[in-house]
């Protein structure tokens, strides 16, 4: 079975991570989001004005196929919870956490790490505001958990530059894991 990567949440982090992975030639993605594209998303998320009102899963698949027509992302229009996460991301060796609230992030991380043994998790935490993007880093915090971000900023105002920097950290680490450039060996 080919290595698959799950992306939980298709907002500023998830939509940009998906685009970067497909641009890098990686096609085996599982996407999950329950939301629709709104005007306020356009300042940082990968969508275009004509996507307003569309399901983020549909809009994201359309963008990915514009980059690579052979990409066949599996999209789940669903609100992730403790009960459905293992099913939605079944077979994913890496899951990218790109959800919105701190509670949802912690719920997803705890659920994947305790219910999906062997799965690597690449989380994003701390992307708000206008501070120097040099504060955004990739940290290997648990055996199977990496966290990208500055770890602290949560003012709620998010803008394209720092969000894209964090998405870049996540996508870069995912590619490093896939292609064996980290010490970890993904079987």
């Amino acid at each position, binding site marked *: 079975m080919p290595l698959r990567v799950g992306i939980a*949440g298709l*907002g*500023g*982090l*998830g939509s940009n991570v998906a685009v970067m992975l497909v641009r890098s030639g990686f096609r085996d993605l599982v996407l999950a989001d329950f939301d629709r594209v709104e005007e306020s998303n356009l300042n940082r998320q990968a969508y275009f004005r004509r996507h307003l009102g569309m399901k983020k899963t549909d809009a994201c698949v359309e963008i990915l196929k514009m980059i690579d027509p052979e990409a066949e992302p599996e999209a789940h229009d669903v609100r992730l919870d403790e009960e459905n996460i293992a099913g939605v991301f079944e077979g994913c060796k890496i899951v990218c956490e*790109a*959800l*919105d*609230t*701190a*509670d949802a*992030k*912690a719920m997803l*991380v*705890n659920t994947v*790490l*305790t219910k999906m043994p062997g799965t690597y998790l690449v*989380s*994003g*935490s*701390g*992307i*708000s505001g206008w501070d120097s993007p040099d504060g955004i880093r990739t940290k290997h*915090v*648990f*055996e*199977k*958990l990496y*966290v990208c*971000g500055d*770890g*602290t*900023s*949560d003012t*709620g105002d*998010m803008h394209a530059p720092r969000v894209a920097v964090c998405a870049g950290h996540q996508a870069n680490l995912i590619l490093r894991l896939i292609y064996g450039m980290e010490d970890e060996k993904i079987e």
Partner: protein
Amino acid sequence: MKANGKEMEVREGTTLHEFLVSAGYDTSRVAVELNGSVSPRNTYKNIVLKDTDSMEIVSFVGGG
């Protein structure tokens, strides 16, 4: 006990939940790896900490 690389004193009988709350963590926003394995959140109140424990705590902030 060691938490995030720092030596800490814990009173005998302190649970993981009590320790996290007293250290200022919101337990609905954290993940904890205790002695190399991730502790399920519904076990925090049952886990009694020991001097020899070593834990990593990650606290998440919003934004995605």
